[in-house]
Structures are given as structure tokens and as C-alpha cells.
């Protein structure tokens, strides 16, 4: 089996090198540009960490659903729901109240947006991937309708909500422009650690993983797979909503049309690459942050940013091939 894996990796690398050569650039130089643009200077590292934050939280959202045996492809929609509702609430209040309410409403919105997928999976056996794909599209369309109408800031030309008051924003833990690191990153890291402990040390975490490993065995052990499915999907959605709320409160300051560049989709790659450990989501999301930030540097060099999405797709395939090779060996 190992030679198949090697063939896959060699094939992927050959396609990428070929693509870069078609773009009339040297693969080695492009790699240097990518690394320099994401890790070369303090401000580049800060930018990479900024990209890492939503990927980390969304990655955890996908990860916990995956532990319960669910594919939450809907993190993108849950993020949009969370960000949109957070912006609506946070712009109405000042100070800490706006921040806390914004985060809570964002999480609630994300959880509610994931709930239909969880319920349909648990009680109707409708594939959660299909429902979440549909919910993603609905979220994107509804958010676009809201932001171009009812919640649009009449004082601005662009389709966006008003800015959240500065006193309600998440604070910077290090600020020396252009090098700024937001408190949001700390939240993300704490969440990863908290989730790892929760999964390992609590009954609920154990039940969730038991259902993910084998639904039928879990049912014989007295666990209700239906209940766990709905709960896992809701937690996952709440985390997706939290990622959206944090994105509003920490970096963007408002909600606008085209808010997410696809963090929810990249998060699937983050979670797959992380494998079985919540701690592994940390380096995995950082790698995706590097790719995302470095892609911008490549674009300045005349290599279209799309190439980083191709890299991402191939990483997903390779990570999945390794993961499923292990699974089929166990069986």
C-alpha cells in the first residue's frame, strides 16, 4: 500500500511544480517567496497569525464534529450566521456588554444554523453533508440580502453594517503597528486545550467519541447516538459562530458582503490534517495560515493566488489517504 501513497505525493508535487513552471517561475523561488511573505518579517508573522485565528477556531469546529463521525461542511454558513448576528447586536451596545453579547449571540446563531443538519441526521438519516451544503448557500444569500437592505449602514456606500464601537472590540495583546497580535488568538489556543481535555476527561467527551467510533456499539453501551449527534453538531455550529463573532470583534469591526474568503472550507483541511488530537489543530491551522498569507505574496510576484487553493486540495487528498490507510489496516 505504501507505494500508492508515494505515487500520490509524487504526483501532487509534480502537478504543482508543473503549474508553477507554466506560470514562468521557478518552483524553488516561489517557495521562498511564499515562506518569506508569511514568516520573513515580524509584520508578516503577525499577518499569518491573524489568518490562523479563524482557521484555528473553525478547524476545532470541524474537528469536534469529525470526532462524533460527522462531516460539518457547514462551518462556512455557521460562521456567516454568527458574524452577521454578532455585528447586528454588537453595534447596538457599548463597552464590555457589546462584546459579551456579541460573542454569545454569535455562538447561538451558529448553533441554531447547525441544528437542522444535526436533527435531520439524527432522526431522518439525511446526510449531514448535503444539508450543510444547502444551509451554507442559504446563509450566504440571506446575509447578502440583510447587509444590502435592513442592516446596511446608510452612511456608507459599501454594503456593510456600521462599525462596532471601539470599546466593544477584543483587545490587542501586543500592539506596535504594523505588528499587532489580538487576544482572539489566545481564545483559540485555550479552546484547543480545553477541547482536548474535555474529550479525554469527561463523560460527555467520551460518549461523543464513542458514537464517532461505532454508533451501534455506543447504543449497546447505553449512549443515545441521536442525542450525541444533535449535541455535537450544535457545539460545532456554536464554534463556527464564535469564529465569525471573533472575526467581527477582533479584526473586521463590522459585517460586510463577501465576509469570509472560505475559512469554513479550509477548516476541513485543517481538521483532517490534525488527525485524532485537538492539540494538532494548532500546528495544522498555522500551516494553513502560512499558505493563505504566503499566497498573497505569490500574487504580488505574478503567480495567481488560486495555486494555494490547489495546494490545499492536494493536502486534503494526501492527508485523507494517510488517514484512511490507517483505518483500513486496523479493520
Amino acid at each position, binding site marked *: 500500500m505504501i507505494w500508492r501513497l508515494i505515487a500520490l505525493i509524487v504526483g501532487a508535487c509534480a502537478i504543482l511544480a508543473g503549474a508553477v513552471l507554466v506560470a514562468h517561475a521557478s518552483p524553488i523561488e516561489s517557495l521562498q517567496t511564499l515562506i518569506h511573505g508569511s514568516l520573513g518579517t515580524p509584520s508578516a508573522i503577525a499577518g499569518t497569525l491573524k489568518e490562523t485565528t479563524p482557521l484555528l477556531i473553525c478547524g476545532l469546529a470541524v474537528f469536534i464534529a469529525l470526532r462524533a463521525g460527522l462531516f460539518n461542511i457547514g462551518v462556512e454558513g455557521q460562521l456567516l450566521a454568527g458574524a452577521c448576528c454578532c455585528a447586528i447586536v454588537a453595534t447596538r451596545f457599548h463597552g464590555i456588554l457589546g462584546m459579551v453579547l456579541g460573542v454569545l449571540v454569535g455562538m447561538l446563531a451558529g448553533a441554531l444554523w447547525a441544528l437542522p443538519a444535526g436533527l435531520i441526521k439524527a432522526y431522518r438519516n439525511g446526510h449531514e453533508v448535503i444539508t450543510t451544503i444547502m444551509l451554507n448557500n442559504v446563509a450566504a444569500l440571506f446575509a447578502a440580502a440583510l447587509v444590502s437592505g435592513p442592516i446596511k449602514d446608510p452612511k456608507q456606500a459599501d454594503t456593510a453594517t456600521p462599525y462596532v464601537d471601539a470599546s466593544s472590540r477584543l483587545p490587542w495583546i501586543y500592539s506596535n503597528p504594523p505588528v499587532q497580535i489580538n487576544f482572539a488568538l489566545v481564545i483559540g489556543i485555550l479552546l484547543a486545550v480545553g477541547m482536548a481535555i474535555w474529550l479525554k476527561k469527561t463523560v460527555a467527551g467520551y460518549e461523543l467519541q464513542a458514537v464517532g467510533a461505532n454508533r451501534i456499539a455506543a447504543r449497546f453501551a447505553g449512549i443515545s447516538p441521536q442525542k450525541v449527534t444533535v449535541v455535537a453538531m450544535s457545539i460545532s455550529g456554536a464554534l463556527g459562530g464564535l469564529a465569525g463573532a471573533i472575526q467581527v470583534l477582533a479584526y473586521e469591526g463590522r459585517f460586510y458582503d463577501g465576509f469570509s474568503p472560505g475559512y469554513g472550507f479550509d477548516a476541513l483541511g485543517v481538521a483532517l490534517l490534525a488527525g485524532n488530537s485537538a492539540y494538532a489543530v494548532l500546528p495544522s491551522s498555522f500551516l494553513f495560515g502560512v499558505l493563505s498569507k504566503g499566497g498573497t505574496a505569490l500574487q504580488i510576484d505574478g503567480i495567481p493566488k488560486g495555486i494555494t487553493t490547489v495546494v*490545499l486540495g492536494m493536502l486534503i487528498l494526501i492527508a485523507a489517504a494517510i488517514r484512511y490507510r490507517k483505518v483500513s489496516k486496523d479493520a
Partner: protein
Amino acid sequence: MLNLLVLTILFSTPLILAAMGGYTSERGGVINIGLEGMMLMAACVGALAAAHYGPVGQMIAGVVAATVLSFVHWLATQVYHIDHVISGMAINAVAAGGTNFLYLKLSDPAHGSGLPHLPISVFCVAGIVVPFLLWFYSRQTRGGLRLMAVGSDPDKARLMGIQPIRVRLFGLLATGILTGIAGVELVAYTGVFTDNMTSGRGYIALAALILGGWRPLPTFMACVVFGFFSALRLQLQGTPLFGAQLPSQLWAALPYLVTIIALAGLLGRNRTPAGLGKP
């Protein structure tokens, strides 16, 4: 009125072709959320080829491009045993990024819009004929029955001497061809490739397939209904309905909402092929 009819046919054809592509894949038991990516890749490669090789070259290049992606899906799911959903996601990512890269690098700006293409009516006729052909194929021929058998229970099919891996290969090659034609039609109609020009049509085709209960003719009907609503939306744009101006996004969200309701089991029984996603 005539305008509405023409628009309906125009909008539903790519949906029908893509949904039929989904049919040959999912009836064989392979979950395929990569329809979107296959269409997008076909549209991009078709647009690039049309500038040099004319309308027939456009069609061939687009179909080959989609078939290559479809083959990758077969390789990933059947040879590497990767989960079907992950492979589909990866294909969508590769197509979204790859088309952006290819088109920016290889397109000839001098050519502009107005690429040569086959007459649109060819695509429309294909859109009407293919569902009936597939209906006949899956009911009356040995190959079609084998495809259904593999999708319903791969293990029993194996016992009867059918190799699911081979049957699925042919199913997925058909998927590539059909989604390829669908993608080429998009670029033939608009005359120019733009980033993410499929804008969710692959997912709407998937929705139609689910609403149609994985059967060719009801799926065909679902696609026509979705196409009709898109046409209606274009016609009604700006005209107030029931005294209020509805945002156009609500119309666009309609197919997705109906699908969620159907999956909740509120529209008849669940007809998912039993072997969907099984090795």
C-alpha cells in the same frame, strides 16, 4: 411569455446535464459533491481551447477536463478508499484554485468575449434526451441494472460476480462527460470565463437529484422547476410582488430551502440509494 419559456430551457439545461452526471455517479454508490468543480473546470478549459481550436475543440477539451477530475474522484474513492465527501471537497478546491490559475496565466486577452461555440440548441436537445436515455438505460439494459445493483448493495453485487470498482469507473466517466457538457454550455452561453462562474449550479443539480429521489425523470422535472424559478426571478426583477419588494436572494435560496425540507422527510419517503458511500 415566450421569453420566460426560452429562459427556463436555457437555465435548466446545465442543471439537467449536471444532475444526470450526479445520477450515474450516485446510483453506483459514489457520493459526488464534486459536480460543481467538474463543471467549473470544463468551463475554464473549454474557454481556453475555444480560442485556438474552435467550437468542437471547446467541447472535447471541456469534456476531457471534467472527465479527468471525475477519474481522480474514482481513483481517490475506489483505489485509495478516501471518504467520498473529502475527495469531492478536494476536487472542488482544486477546480476553484486551478481554474483561477489557468485562466489568468493562459487566456489570451486579445480574444475578449464572443468565443466560437456550438449552437445552444444542441445543448438543450441533449438536456431533454439524456434523462430519457438514462431512464431507459437503468431500467432495460444489463449495464444499467448492474449500476443500480452496485449502488444498492455493493456486497451482494460482489457475491453475484459484479466488480463494483469497474462499474463505478464507467459511472464516473459518464459523470465526467455529462458535467463536462454542462460546463461547456455555461461558457458557450456567456461567451467568456469568469472566476467561479458556476456559482453553485453543481450544488443545485445535487439538490435536484435528491428531490427527484435519485430517479432520472423526476430529477429532470426538479431541474426544470429550478430553472423556471431562476427565469421568473430574472423576469420579475424590480417588479413588486404582493405589494412588497422581495430581495432577489430569497428566490435564489428557494431550491436550497426546498431540499432541506425534502431531506427532513416532509416530502415523501427517503429514497437514498442504500449503498451510497459504501466501499
